[in-house]
């Protein structure tokens, strides 16, 4: 399995980010290792087996009794889970460059760093299909698998952020860190999702992705503007008259929306960062890492 992300330039970027993260979080890593050598490997719970899990962690007694593969989890692990929530709705596919491409590369970068720093990384596409297995990856050896899994994601269809998160967190233990990469392109629902994440105790950073042509849409001076929603049927198109006031009206409403999303995230105690789809990947990831809360 060869990922399209596994390009030399991108991998070099990832390596630089790992180096940066190791330098940033060296103290954290040492403490975690000492805790792991002690009695920190205290049994915590079972979770479903996912392909790629270390077979040594499979509890074969459970398999014999229940005919179901379960992996044992220990207390030290619960603090080392990084959940990457990536919005795969159709709206993410819009923009030039595509928001989804940027989200995928960011997710790959953060997951890559997480694997190298000893995190268990779960890549969860949103909307989450209820009952779908959660893929957990651990250790640098899983990096190719992470890149491949990220590569397989596609932006299509619509979704309800709140409902998806409810379904996901029903299966998720709700601990660890999370990064939610999304364009928040729904008029409502995200505020409730933010609150739900906070209630579940998942320390989440919201990475709000916007395309440059969403911030400053290329509008004609006059004539008719026909707008297509990637999540709506093709027949549902909105037409309006272009003109001098349209851009200002749109910008005004977009700023209001962005402000509301940021305020709701901060009100729920989540980290919030807005980034453009044409922003430099390394710089964005570096800023996220340097903020310090993501992997600490």
């Amino acid at each position, binding site marked *: 399995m060869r990922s399209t992300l596994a390009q030399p330039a991108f991998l070099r970027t990832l390596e630089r980010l790992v180096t940066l993260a190791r330098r940033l979080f060296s103290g954290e890593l040492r403490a975690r290792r000492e805790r792991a050598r002690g009695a920190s490997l205290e049994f915590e719970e079972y979770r479903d087996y996912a392909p790629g899990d270390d077979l040594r962690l499979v509890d074969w007694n459970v398999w014999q009794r229940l005919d179901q593969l379960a992996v044992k989890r220990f207390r030290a692990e619960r603090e080392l889970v990084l959940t990457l929530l990536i919005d795969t709705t159709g709206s993410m596919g819009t923009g030039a460059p595509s928001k989804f491409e940027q989200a995928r590369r960011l997710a790959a970068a953060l997951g890559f760093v997480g694997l190298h720093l000893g995190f268990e990384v779960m890549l969860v596409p949103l909307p989450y299909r209820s009952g779908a297995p959660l893929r957990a990856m651990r250790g640098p050896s899983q990096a190719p698998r992470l890149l491949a899994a990220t590569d397989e994601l596609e932006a299509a269809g619509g979704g309800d952020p709140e409902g998806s998160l409810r379904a996901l967190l029903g299966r998720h233990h709700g601990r660890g860190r999370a990064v939610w990469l999304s364009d928040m392109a729904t008029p409502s629902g995200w505020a409730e999702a933010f609150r739900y994440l906070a209630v579940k105790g998942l320390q989440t950073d919201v990475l709000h992705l916007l395309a440059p042509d969403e911030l400053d849409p290329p509008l004609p001076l006059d*004539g*008719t503007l*026909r707008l297509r929603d990637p999540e709506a049927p093709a027949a549902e198109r909105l037409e309006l008259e*272009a003109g001098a*006031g349209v851009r200002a*009206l749109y910008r005004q409403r977009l700023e209001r929306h962005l402000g509301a999303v940021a305020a709701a995230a901060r009100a729920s105690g989540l980290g919030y960062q807005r980034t453009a789809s044409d922003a430099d990947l390394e710089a964005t990831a570096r800023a996220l890492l340097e903020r310090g809360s993501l992997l600490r």
Partner: protein
Amino acid sequence: MDVRWQHPELAAFAALALPLVALFVARRKPVELESAYRWLWEEVAGARQARRYQDWLRLLWQLLVIAVGVAALAGPYRGEREGPRQLRITVDRSLSMGARLADGRTRLAAALARLEPELLPGCLVTVVALPEPEVVVERADAAGARRALASLRPSQLTATPASLALLARAGQADRRLLVSDGAGLAQPPEGVQLVAPDEAAEHPHNLALAGLRLWPAELQRGWRLTVDAQNFGPRERQVRLRATDAEGRRIAERSRSLPAGSGGAMGLTLPPSFAGGAAGRLLLELTAIDEGAPDPLDADHIVPLWLPELPRASVTLVAPGGREQLSPYWWAIMRALAGDGWADPDRVVVATEVPRELPGAHRVLVLDGVRTRRALPACELVISFGSRAPGIANQTAVEGPQKVWRQTRDHPLLANVDLGQLRVHRGGVLAARREMTLVESARGPLLLHASRGGVQLLQTSYRLGDSNLGLLPHAFAPLLKNTLRAVLTPPAAAAPRRVGDALPDGRWQLTPIHGAARLASGRARRAGWYEQESRALSAHVEARAESDLRRPALPAPAPPPPLAPARVSYRLPLIALTAALWLLGLLLPPLWARG
């Protein structure tokens, strides 16, 4: 509206609209945009709902501007002739034009109605009326001319054909119309179109009393009445004039034949049996008879004329120069007084000084150029002109025209002055204190009635020579007469029926023509003078009857040929409209965007 185009080929410029429409269609091709924030765009669209049809409206507006502009360039116009049409309408409103048609309209009204097709927009119309030559309107538009024509009424006078032709051909005009029934006109003047009423619509019994002359003013046995009768009907008629007294007894009768469209005078001499004096009342009936038998006319065509009972009041005239230097106004005053029965001309006392007291039954004191400090004696009315006496305002001074007598012989007191319409452009100012203003002018009271020390004073402030009245010589007497009517108590306890009172409204027009009174010391002398004057007047009337009033029936005039209406161009208004629309098109969109 029949609009024509001076340059119809310019309509090709309408093709300018094609690229505009093509550009519009090209611009209407929608620009596709994919956006994740559809609901934001829906809010934007909701806020710009009013803009939805803006482009369509703009296109329609531009097409409208082009259409109006192209129409303006193409030069739309209505009518045929270039420039305004100068129309001169001369209106004969003589007595005969007052004759009725079968539908009740007068000949004048019927003829004026036929003018309507001539009064086109863009016309400059001058209307002149005769007799009493008067420019009614000068270079008025059609609406103004229409209003002026509607205000014209038939007069009591006659207009000579010569004067009609003279006035109709005077002034500058490219079309001349003479509104007349053609009476006395052998043919219309050259270059003048005759507009006449439809003779076929004449009332079959169009008969009128043109005038009544009593000579002298009061009725006495042996005295003579002269009546002008007018047959406006389409055929010759036998006309009878019958006089009966108040009890219905026949006093005198006279008949004569009047050819169609002609008039004539009939004289009646009051027989010795006529009581005369205060009891003298006379009923005159004018009827048409055919072959000795009464014409089957309805009651409207029997014209009763009740003459008033005459009072026996006296007038004292104070004239320093005596009878020989009486002001011409004196005659007018006496005519007014006697004609309405306010005074008895036989009982006129002429004095050179203001008397200390007046004999009984003296009602009126007339001061003519009197300078006195003596208080005026008690009487019912003081008329003063050119006099200075206690109780008379200094401003009271009236100077009359010099040709009163000659004028009144031609048209004795035919003026009918409406006091409400009286206009005087120059005159003195009367101090109006506790006086009753009878006539108000722009500068102050024109005619005052004052009562001082029990004496009624009538004061005028203007000089007749300065008046702008059409009938200067005749104006004073009826003015005075009407004023007297307002000032004095009625001459008789029971108001007598006056001439014309019994006339049906709108059917007949009569002119009471009062004889002139004159002072005379002795009856014989007076009778001789009266006889002489009567003969002169009769001869005059007869002569006029032969010339003016004899109206051979003319064939019905052909309707005026239609004249091409004046051209009215719409180019300038359309250019202005184009500019206005274009400016609005520039100004409105920014205002709209701001709204």
